[in-house]
């Protein structure tokens, strides 16, 4: 039900033209206001706190849509921030993004590199020295870290900036929550790339027939479908536990989606031919994000290493027993 409502907003306010305009520097305010006015930013807050009380499964559907529409705002992060503090109503209005890495530099300044959606968010949450800090973006010194159309930036604040968030139900999960959200975003964007690619293969005629009729193209699309399905399953399963997602589940989700992202982007472009890399064609809105989201909050290389350690240090001597515990929580 949340998904239907949000997709109707996105259909109106998050068209490819709107995404392009926001990426080009236009205000994201109409889209931001439509999402905020409909109460979507409070989706995950409990009903006691005036929120939507949505489950993780509901949330997954919404995150998937955000990926599928290339939403140029940190919608998923803003929703999840409601779980990072005991006082969600005390959070500022506007959009809040996550810092994949927040560090204190030698000169005492706080540094957040390559923050997604820094250009459209008003605040950043980051973890530094064991504390979750909420920092204002307008107060930061900002340097673009994106190329054409990108919204990310590297941000820097004086050492005493920010306020501490405390007592949220998901605070302990913050180190991997950003990865989980991006796994869902990746799955959504991959599905959109797939739909665009199938559509193009059925339309584009070469040698007298649609290119989708050629076996070589069909096999590429079949492989693409397999990896889109795997990405969706890995991310959905991590959200689908219907409790706070666990570290191993988030690790599998981000690793599997990130690995698939590279492959899906490359097949999508191969099938589209040169039109796919043009500014005017929509595919790039999604494949640019696949590459950005693969990197952010750790690529598969990072999560594979972490998972590998969990496997080798696990008491289980059968891999099958280990992977069961990934989804089922505590070791059986």
């Amino acid at each position, binding site marked *: 039900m949340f998904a239907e409502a949000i997709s109707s907003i996105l259909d109106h306010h998050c068209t490819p033209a709107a995404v392009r305009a926001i990426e080009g520097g236009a205000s994201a305010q109409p889209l931001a206001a439509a999402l905020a006015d409909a109460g979507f930013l409070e989706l995950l807050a409990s009903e006691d706190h005036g929120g939507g009380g949505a489950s993780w499964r509901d949330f997954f559907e919404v995150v998937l849509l955000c990926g599928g529409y290339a939403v140029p705002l940190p919608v998923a992060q803003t929703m999840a921030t409601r779980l990072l503090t005991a006082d969600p109503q005390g959070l500022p209005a506007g959009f809040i993004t996550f810092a994949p890495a927040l560090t204190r530099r030698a000169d005492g300044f706080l540094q957040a590199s390559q923050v997604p959606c820094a250009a459209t968010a008003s605040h950043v949450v980051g973890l530094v020295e064991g504390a979750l800090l909420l920092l204002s973006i307008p107060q930061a010194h900002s340097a673009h870290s994106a190329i054409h159309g990108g919204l990310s930036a590297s941000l820097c604040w004086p050492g005493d900036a920010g306020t501490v968030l405390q007592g949220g139900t998901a605070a302990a999960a913050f180190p991997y929550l950003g990865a989980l959200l991006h796994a869902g975003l990746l799955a959504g964007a991959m599905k959109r790339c797939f739909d665009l690619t199938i559509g193009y293969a059925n339309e584009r005629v070469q040698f007298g027939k649609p290119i989708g009729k050629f076996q070589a193209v069909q096999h590429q699309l079949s492989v693409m479908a397999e990896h889109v399905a795997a990405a969706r399953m890995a991310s959905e399963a991590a959200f689908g536990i219907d409790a706070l997602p666990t570290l191993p589940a988030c690790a599998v989700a981000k690793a599997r989606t990130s690995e698939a992202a590279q492959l899906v982007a490359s097949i999508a472009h191969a099938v589209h031919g040169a039109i796919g890399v043009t500014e005017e064609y929509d595919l790039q809105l999604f494949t640019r994000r696949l590459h950005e989201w693969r990197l952010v909050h750790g690529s598969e290389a990072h999560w*594979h290493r972490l998972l590998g350690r969990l496997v080798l240090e696990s008491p289980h001597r*059968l891999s099958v027993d280990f*992977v069961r515990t990934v989804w089922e929580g505590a070791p059986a």
Partner: protein
Amino acid sequence: MADLLDNLQLASLPPHTEAFRREVKHFLAQELPPTPADVRSRSWLAFDAEFSRKLGARGWVGVTLPKQYGGAELDAFSRFVLVEELLAVGAPVGAHWIADRQSGPLILKFGSDAQKARYLPGICRGEIFFCIGMSEPNSGSDLASVASRAVRTDKGWRLNGRKIWTTNGHKCDYTIALVRTSGSPADRHAGLSQFVVDLKLPGVTVRPIVDLTGDAHFSEMFFDDVELDPEALIGNEGDGWKQVNAELAFERSGPERLYSSIVLLDAWLGWLRESARFEQQLETVGRFAAHLATLRQLSVAITAKLAAGESPVVEAALVKDLGTEFEQAVPAIIEAAIGADPADPPGEELVRTLAYVSHMAPTFSLRGGTREILRGMIARGLGLR
């Protein structure tokens, strides 16, 4: 028809399977003697009639078949758990595997009452063993081109032809053969029928085919004027193609399409754990785990469809192709990892296990439908054909 992707919905094993899993683990701990990994890695090809009878006595062959035929009448989720546990330890399940997975369900679905009464109880006791008679010399992936033929006689049918790549055919009691009963190979799907053939009948010759590991898991079967009684025909004459496709959904959907290299993977992980060398292999180990965890969820999604009475043919093809890729990546990557440091060789058992799985890995994407056939099916499911 992007619906294909929406069909693979997240599902989980229902709670009742947890107690069942513990039972199965307990049974395996009791009944399986310690066996080297290179032997265990043969798992669903390994023919051990005694082990199959023990499983049958426990009620765990034909687990999904109705109680009236001696089955345990458990759901598809329980079968998933049983199969998963058996494969995870590399139990020798090859003797009853085909009957449990596809011949039994096929007879239950399409067979006459007399056929059900005749075959299913023996299957469930782990006493009669079946093999698959689909492939023929030169038919390969073009299954519809089968040329073996059964013609009507006064007393039933007379069968002539050949079958090949039959797993454990030379050790089995029966095969279910897909043969032509009318028309010619040019008629493709029309005119095909399935017969239960008793491999002890006069005119049947079964020869093992020795493979590159020195094993003889495959065989070829010759049918020379084999007289079949009318009760040998399964289902309706001419419905063979339809029946075979239902059967292939079972063949392609099981965890054995993910776990063929699992004994090797665990043997390698055991070796890595013994020393600090695992630091160098964390990324590889984690990648295997991420793929396996995801594939297992996809396989559970297929199982949920089977449990709901659906026949997820294309979904199973999609998961099998991905699963096979994983099964083949495991020996390929482990071979490179082990060989990366010639000064630190593993023990003989791990080396033999690696050799066995590497040598047989090419078959993983052949059996049950080649990669190319599966990708064609997926393309059709996506509306491209």
